[in-house]
């Protein structure tokens, strides 16, 4: 196995990673659609290797200053964090969408924290589990945590120990037109994971394209 310093992904590996994220987010959107009974529209994912500060800057570009995020850390062969992010003003609408429209405002407010955590958990787990299954590895996923604040404070999370300054940054927009809800899913993967990821992606490519002898249907 090569060292992390030589682990820049080549074109096909980046393609495979984008496809993998696409599979994961599509599954997650399907789960969310089942919860709210309304279509969830997704953008094409963007996958980039950039500096941690640059990632925070992109995440912070939103004109909306007050944001809510459901945040989960994943650990295993690859380590990083997954975030489901949307404007705080639409948070109650999302809760309403996943619960019942008949609930009173008091009930909705009371349920907010729990409903957001559960929604984030289903969406982010759906995405991460699909990715892990396709890579044939297990990821340990932390419990969801709700973060609130302006974009800078929200994303200026402490990097894990040994994490470098460069992160693999994956970003997808989602929207629910009928509810006027828009947000995004972001994955930040730490540099030390990249060498491991590269190996996993090569195996994934082999399975998908038939270069390897065995193929699961």
């Amino acid at each position: 196995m090569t060292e992390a310093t030589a682990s820049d992904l080549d074109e096909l590996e980046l393609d495979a990673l984008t496809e993998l994220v696409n599979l994961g987010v599509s599954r997650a959107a399907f789960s969310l659609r089942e919860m709210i009974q309304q279509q969830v529209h997704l953008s094409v994912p963007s996958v980039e290797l950039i500096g941690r500060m640059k990632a925070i800057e992109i995440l912070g570009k939103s004109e909306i200053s007050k944001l809510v995020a459901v945040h989960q850390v994943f650990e295993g062969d690859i380590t990083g964090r997954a975030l489901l992010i949307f404007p705080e003003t639409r948070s109650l609408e999302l809760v309403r969408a996943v619960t019942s429209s008949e609930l009173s405002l008091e009930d909705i407010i009371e349920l907010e924290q729990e409903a957001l955590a559960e929604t984030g958990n289903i969406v982010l787990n759906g995405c991460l589990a699909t990715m892990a299954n396709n890579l044939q590895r297990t990821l340990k996923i932390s419990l969801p945590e709700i973060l609130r604040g302006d974009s800078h404070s929200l994303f200026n999370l402490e990097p894990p120990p040994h994490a470098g300054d460069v992160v693999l940054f994956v970003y997808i927009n989602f929207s629910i037109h009928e509810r006027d809800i828009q947000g995004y899913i972001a994955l930040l993967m730490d540099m030390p994971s990249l060498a491991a990821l590269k190996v996993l992606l090569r195996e994934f490519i082999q399975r998908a394209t038939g270069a390897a002898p065995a193929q699961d249907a």
Partner: protein
Amino acid sequence: MGYKILVVDDSKLARMAVAKALAALHPDWTRVEAANADEAIAVLKQSKPDVAVLDFNMPGRDGLDLAAELRAMVPNMPVAVISANHQQEVVDRARAIGATFLVKPLTEPALQEFLAGAVAQLKAAGA
């Protein structure tokens, strides 16, 4: 004689995966590829494929928009749209256009079933 299939996906890996399944099922078929809707229309005009397999989530026009265009240009061409996004609205739209919806990652049996139907349809149309 084998047929000619058009494979459209912005992911090279996904196109390779379709190529692998196709090689196992119909080694005598010819494959032409495109990475987006505009390229697909150009390839369609130039190569005149018999069957098309399209990715749904692509930059620019998505696979369902492209499927509708292809169906308008070549009404008898069997078209499949592939996506991991199997939300009911997406599946319904595919059906309304007259395209088959296939779940990603694509499996050989799923592609086989679509292609068997496509061959029957092409034979009936005298292609």
